[in-house]
């Protein structure tokens, strides 16, 4: 089913991509969603298939082996996948806009030639490591260090909450090359799987997004060539903040997909479930919930598409992407919560999809900057 087909502002490409992702997700993702969730199985094979479809390098230009589309199409990809499975949506988002996006945005031509075709085709899976156990929102105070030694850098420290920390073939790692807490003291490096000293630690057992792998990444005197430094030394933190500006659009799209999925399930159920001799959608108490959900979802989509449009035109998006991320995430959580309510006891079981939306949605208000951090960003922008 396509719910954007009649909207004249949706381009034919977006529509075709939406249908394509729906076809793929209904055949290769939907049948396994609950099993992957229960067993915390990270389905690597699905990312290979997504790669063949061109969905692992949506924003990468064709000259680097990508699909060469813009943010609008990218938003459709992430939200349609997430409507079916938030975990896969999160992983596709982290691969595309964080790891691949960082190399695309700040790598030299040689670095792009070296890594982008593998990432964009899905042959390689990417990770992006900023967060540490003691530094989440306050990432600038990270402890991981990178020390230059001849033609190499030696990385030491532990990163936490890293999507694809274990299964990645390549990771972009932020590490301190200068003073702690100074914006100019962080640099970004590419670390390939198999590099001695680079390994994965504990895999997190999560509330939601359980089919998306989240692990610790350990850098134990990990030596990498100097050529793996992205941009200049000291630019890593600024780069990471720019990457998050774009990344927030993808988490917003993830939230939108989850909200849509939860809403559609609740809408359908409300028409089928009868109590007191009528469908529960006939009660104003329920129909008003549906009206709020639908309105908020529409508003979230407009905010996201506005940010996507600006991002495509290379205009500043810090404020808008933070707004889109903040609002859409909260909408996803509210919508999933109300969806469970509309399903009643059935919504509290694993036989119906809404309990999973409820669990998955919560990540959106935390990952890639919590809702509170988004408000700090928005406030800083409007007060400056």
């Amino acid at each position, binding site marked *: 089913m396509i719910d954007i087909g009649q909207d004249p502002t949706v381009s*034919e*490409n977006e529509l075709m991509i939406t249908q*394509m992702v729906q076809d793929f997700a209904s055949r290769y993702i939907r049948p396994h969603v609950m099993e992957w969730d229960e067993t915390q199985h990270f389905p690597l094979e699905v990312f290979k298939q997504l790669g063949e479809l*061109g969905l692992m390098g949506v924003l990468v230009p064709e000259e680097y082996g990508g699909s060469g589309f813009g943010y609008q199409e990218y938003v459709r990809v992430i939200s349609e996948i997430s409507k079916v499975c938030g975990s896969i949506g999160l992983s596709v988002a982290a691969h595309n806009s964080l790891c691949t996006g960082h190399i695309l945005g700040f790598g030299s031509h040689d670095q792009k030639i070296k890594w982008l075709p593998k990432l964009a085709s899905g042959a390689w899976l990417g990770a992006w490591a900023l967060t540490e156990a003691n530094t989440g929102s306050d990432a600038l105070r990270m402890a991981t260090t990178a020390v230059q030694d001849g033609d190499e850098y030696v990385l030491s420290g532990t990163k936490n909450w890293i999507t694809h920390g274990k299964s990645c073939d390549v990771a972009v790692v932020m590490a301190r090359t200068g003073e702690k807490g100074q914006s100019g003291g962080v640099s970004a490096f590419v670390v390939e799987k198999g590099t001695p000293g680079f390994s994965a630690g504990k895999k997190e057992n999560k509330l939601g997004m359980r089919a998306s792998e989240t692990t610790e990444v350990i850098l134990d005197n990990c030596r990498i060539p100097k050529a793996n430094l992205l941009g200049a030394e000291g630019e890593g933190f600024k780069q990471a903040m720019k990457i998050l500006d774009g990344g927030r659009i993808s988490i917003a799209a993830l939230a939108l997909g989850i909200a849509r999925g939860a809403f559609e399930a609740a809408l359908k159920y409300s028409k089928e479930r009868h109590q007191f001799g009528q469908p529960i959608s006939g009660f104003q108490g329920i129909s008003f919930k549906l009206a709020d959900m639908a309105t908020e979802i529409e508003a979230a989509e407009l905010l996201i598409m506005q940010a996507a449009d600006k991002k495509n035109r290379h205009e500043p998006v810090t404020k808008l992407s933070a707004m889109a991320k903040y609002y859409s995430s909260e909408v996803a959580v509210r919508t999933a919560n109300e969806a469970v309510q509309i399903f009643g006891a059935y919504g509290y079981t694993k036989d119906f999809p809404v309990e999973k939306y409820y669990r998955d949605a919560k990540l959106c208000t935390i990952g890639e900057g919590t809702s509170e951090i988004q408000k700090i960003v928005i406030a800083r922008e409007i007060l400056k």
Partner: protein
Amino acid sequence: MKILVCMSNVPDTTTKITFTSDHKQFNAAGVQFILNPYDELALARAIELTEGGKGTVTVIHVGEASSDPTIRKALAIGADDAVRIDSPAIDAFFTASQVAAYAKDKGFDLVLTGRESIDHNGAQVPAMIGELLGIPSVSIIKKLVIDGTTGILEREIEGGKEIVHVPLPFIASCAEGVAEPKIPNMRGIMSARTKPLSVVTVTEAPVLTSIEKYETPVPRGAVKMVAADDVAKLVGLLHTEAKVI
């Protein structure tokens, strides 16, 4: 090998069907149209047969400009070029006449269609095209292999299967089993816009049928629950209400 694949543009399977003009016309307002699922099978097999430079696939559609997005989907999936005969597909004979008129001097080795379109479910167009082109026509095939200049086709028949050998050129209508529908990739979607889609003016052809009335089936009644141990009541209901025993 030059393959022609016929495609129709049909309402999405989840569409709520309504009618206009005294129940004489399908109400297309607000309806999402898709590539006919059986035609997708035909297209997928055609692409498999020509992959790696072994030929070309042309899709043909009789319809108006509103079908272009669906035609571009066929191009995104992998057809090389497309032709749209610029006219509504009035009825089966009219549609078949248009396809035959276009195809007759183009030297296609193979014409493929879906077994039927999921809107009118007529299943008449393929055989009519075969007749108009003077080529063999095989309906509802489950498998299609080309061996030199011979097509080896498998059909399902009551209690078994039928293997048909037929010389090229021929026309066949495809059912499940012929191929898995192909999902377009991002590159296909990007290139669909630059592949040729030619619009051809309609050929004179008679319209032999007209629709008098459409009716939707009566809605199914509510489910009646019968207690598991109340067999007598169940038998009674099956006899007096459902009238099946």
